[in-house]
């Protein structure tokens, strides 16, 4: 009884081994270098889409007589992507040529020496916020492919009823009060994850401060969260957490959980650009959808919206560096950025791309301008090779939002210092 399955299994293995070796022999025959581009997963294409979608499509279009670009998918979560890439680069794996990186990984990868030098002209025409997130030590180390930004989405009816003039910049205090009065909610990201630090960072920078400075010093960076700006940020968070406008699941809220309450009972939310396409099917909410610049932390001081996106880097250990560098130029060209934006809704990192007619059909021009400005004047998260550690340390003291108070900036400052110097366990 046990023999038959074993025979079948053995046959199966033999067949698999044979087919794998045949496939290996088939590939890589023409002598053209094959560049492997490790990409983060793109959203699913709409059902009626023809052709190759997203980054895979870019890879196809950029493949030419000199080289072919093939894509390999990484896991969905940014943390997993980082782990996979770091482990292989630490082993100097030659199979990785190009990679799609979240901007917060730029510093870590560059500082570790895993990225090949890029021609600095690649940054021409790119928006400032995107360039900031792609540089380390004054140099451009990865090429921005697309840029993401957060804006304030709100229900027009509720803002009207609350008497808010949304044509002027609003502050957090104003929207929290407005929502509380009207029985609405203010949606933020306050789960114990990096998204929360994005919010904290935006509040800090909006008040003129920063989490750290002199980040090139690595573990010896100066921790500057304990400042007037830090206390302003803590005030906003504490106010929201204690107000009726806070969502019930504030301590586990993320970009996705806030969509439900935004539809019902409505209110305000800070979120990335994908919201426009996500809310579209819900016509009732969509008609009432308003958008404005990220709220100010302190009245009168321009807010610094968060910035995200994806940058493309070249591995230092690739065998085909020339080809890879040319490929990067093609991948981040204006046409490809526009096509990608029209397909996926992920906004371009180049200023000129926003003029494109196809893009202007899909999104209202005012919205595009708002995004353009937000990216150009964004407040990037401090580029530090220790960003992961810093996030963990910040979260340790600032989560849950309901525990944030006046003393939080000071506590977190000393904790971050201790963790960076290895005196405290994170």
């Amino acid at each position, binding site marked *: 009884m046990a023999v038959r399955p074993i025979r079948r299994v053995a046959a199966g293995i033999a067949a698999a081994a044979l087919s794998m070796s045949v496939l290996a022999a088939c590939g890589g025959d023409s002598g053209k270098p094959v560049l492997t581009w490790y990409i983060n997963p793109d959203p699913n294409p709409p059902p009626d889409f023809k052709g190759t979608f997203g980054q895979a499509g870019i890879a196809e279009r950029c493949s030419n007589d000199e080289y072919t670009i093939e894509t390999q998918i990484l896991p969905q979560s940014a943390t997993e992507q980082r782990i996979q890439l770091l482990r292989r680069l630490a082993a100097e794996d030659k199979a990785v040529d190009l990679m799609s990186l979240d901007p917060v990984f730029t510093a870590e990868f560059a500082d570790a020496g895993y990225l090949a030098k890029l021609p600095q002209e690649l940054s021409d025409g790119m928006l400032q916020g995107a360039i900031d997130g792609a540089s380390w030590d004054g140099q451009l180390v990865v090429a921005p492919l697309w840029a993401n930004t957060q804006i304030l989405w709100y229900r027009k009816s509720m803002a009207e009823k609350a008497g808010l003039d949304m044509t002027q910049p609003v502050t957090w205090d104003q929207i929290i009060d407005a929502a509380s009065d009207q029985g609405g909610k203010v949606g933020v990201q306050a789960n114990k994850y990096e998204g929360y630090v994005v919010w904290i960072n935006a509040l800090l920078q909006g008040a003129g401060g920063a989490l750290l400075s002199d980040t090139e010093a690595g573990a010896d960076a100066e921790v500057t969260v304990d400042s007037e700006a830090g206390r302003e940020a803590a005030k906003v968070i504490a106010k929201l957490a204690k107000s009726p406008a806070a969502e019930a*699941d504030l301590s586990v809220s993320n970009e996705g959980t806030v969509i439900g309450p935004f539809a019902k009972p409505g209110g305000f939310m800070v979120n990335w650009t994908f919201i426009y396409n996500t809310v579209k099917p819900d016509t009732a909410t969509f008609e009432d959808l308003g958008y404005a610049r990220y709220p100010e932390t302190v009245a009168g001081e321009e807010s610094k919206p968060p910035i995200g996106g994806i940058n493309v880097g070249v591995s230092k250990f690739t065998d085909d560096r020339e080809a890879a560098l040319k490929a990067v130029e093609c991948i981040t060209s204006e046409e490809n950025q526009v096509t990608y934006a029209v397909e996926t809704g992920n906004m371009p990192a180049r200023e000129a791309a926003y003029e494109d007619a196809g893009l202007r059909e899909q999104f209202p021009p005012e919205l595009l301008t708002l995004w353009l400005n937000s990216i150009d004047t964004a407040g990037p998260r401090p580029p530090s090779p220790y960003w992961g550690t810093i996030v963990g340390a910040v979260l340790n003291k600032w989560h849950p939002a309901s525990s944030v108070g006046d003393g939080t900036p000071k506590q977190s400052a000393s904790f971050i210092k201790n963790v960076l110097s290895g005196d405290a366990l994170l």
Partner: protein
Amino acid sequence: MTETATETQPGPPATSDRSRAENRLGWKLVAPAVFVMLLVTAYPMLRALYLSLFQYRLTAPDDREFVGLSNYITVLSDSVWWRDVGVTVLIMVVTVAVELVIGFAFAMVMHRIVFARGVIRTSILIPYGIITVVSAFAWQFAFSLNNGFVNGWLPGVGADYNWFGGTWSSLTAICMSEIWKTTPFMSLLLLAGLSQVSEDMLEAAKVDGATWWQRLFRVILPNMKAAIMVAVLFRALDAFRIFDNIYIMTRGAQNTESVSFLTYRQIIEQFELGMGSALSVLLFLSVLLLAFLIVKLFKVDLASARGEG
């Protein structure tokens, strides 16, 4: 009945041909298993031990420096470590205790059921076959505000109750998920043990007038000691290393972090190999200590056989 002595006696060990042949046969049978086990773990374990003496970050290999036992001292003097140990021990004790009771009940049912045998036995084992990550997601969703049904079904719990907003409620959700998933493991091992209890002994006890309760405690349980020990041992050691459910449900927030999760964060999220290795070694030693305690508690010597039952 004559029997070659198996327990060591004072005096020179028997060196007859028979026992030497037995020695060789024994090692030949054991060798493949030992080889496979060590192939995968010998180098990594030694490397972890070695790295634990360094301050080493994978992405900054040039900054590596030897710090001796300083990593260990940092860990053992940090309240985060002790808090996590407390949480982990709590989860372990609660889940193993509950699972022992439920698992035993299930084992009895699987042993005795006559109708719908296949269905019931299969149903009991299915939770163990569901992929852990999916099970954790499913339970997290069940308890979540926006997408779950638990708030709707439990009387007295408001629709706005955030299970993951506090320590005890989060731990409850995590324990529920863990217990549901791994009770089959326990019940399977207990069933194997239960099946070895001699029917004759039970009949004899019944004839002697023993009640169900007495039969359970005087006949069944003592004869299952080895199986119970293996079940509790492996389950406790697994529970001490709980990771998946915490990773998915709370990511360690609200003081629900386990020792395993702490180690994961050091090694994988921060690539702090030195500190992470020290944590691994400490985790390993704690687990060994736990195993030692459990084995001593049960007073069962698996290696002694040959009719000494």
